[in-house]
């Protein structure tokens, strides 16, 4: 299967470009970024604030199944051009990562397909590389947690 989402990340640079083609008309793709209830559905978080305008701001909150807050993120919207472009910052609160600058560009390919280009600029090459490796590190952590659970289960079974 062809990979729809592409990441362009050159060695030694503090930026990346993420591109994705959607089987959606441009206005629906853009709406997915601007309607708070829809953002919540696909991002899987709570939208505390989302002012879609130049000099607006947004705040998201991610909770675990018990309702504990695991991550808060926020940013300011620098420019907002419907069905064309959003320029904003993004920052995860209480993490070592500093704010990043995001240029989101929305374009129609056909009447029923569209393209999103996300150009992200980080404070440093090191921060970019850390951010890129975060999901891999989390995958290993998840595997490790699962392993701990398995070991605990095995131990308790042995004690029975």
């Amino acid at each position, binding site marked *: 299967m062809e*990979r*729809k*989402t*592409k*990441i362009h*990340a050159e060695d030694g640079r503090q930026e990346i470009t*993420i591109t*994705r083609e*959607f*089987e*959606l008309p441009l206005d*629906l*793709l853009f*709406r*997915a970024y601007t309607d708070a209830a*829809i953002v919540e*559905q*696909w*991002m*899987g978080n709570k939208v505390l604030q989302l002012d879609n305008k130049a000099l607006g701001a947004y705040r998201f909150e991610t909770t675990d199944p018990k309702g504990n807050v695991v991550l808060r993120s926020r940013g300011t919207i620098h420019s907002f051009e419907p069905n064309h472009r959003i320029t904003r910052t993004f920052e995860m609160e209480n993490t070592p990562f500093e704010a990043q600058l995001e240029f989101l560009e929305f374009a129609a390919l056909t009447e029923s397909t569209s393209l*999103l280009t996300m150009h992200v600029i980080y404070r440093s090459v090191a921060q970019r590389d850390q*951010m*890129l*490796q*975060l*999901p*891999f590190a*989390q*995958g*290993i952590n*998840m*595997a*490790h947690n*699962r*392993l701990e659970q*398995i*070991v605990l*289960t*095995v131990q308790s079974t042995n004690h029975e």
Partner: protein
Amino acid sequence: MELRRDVFQAIADPTRRAILTLLAFQAMTPTAIAENFGSTRQTISKHIQILSACELLQPQQNGREIHYTLNAKNMKAIADFIEPFRVLWEERFNKLEDVMKQYIPKK
């Protein structure tokens, strides 16, 4: 490198990731590895075969027993790589597409 795609298929599986985590601490025989999981010895052997084929594991013959260790060099290559980051966005965007395909505009 043609190998890479297979490598990421290999680590996409949670059991195989757990095996790699186990082997990060010590060299182990297939039997010892299997003891950590609820699956059969055969299932674990299959996982070990896949990981070995991707050169993430190295076998060491000790008399009659084979111990497996991590191939540190190839593990490092994965850690530097960004496939899990891409997959994270791919899943997020797939969700977006699914949500919007069901979207009915408000009048």
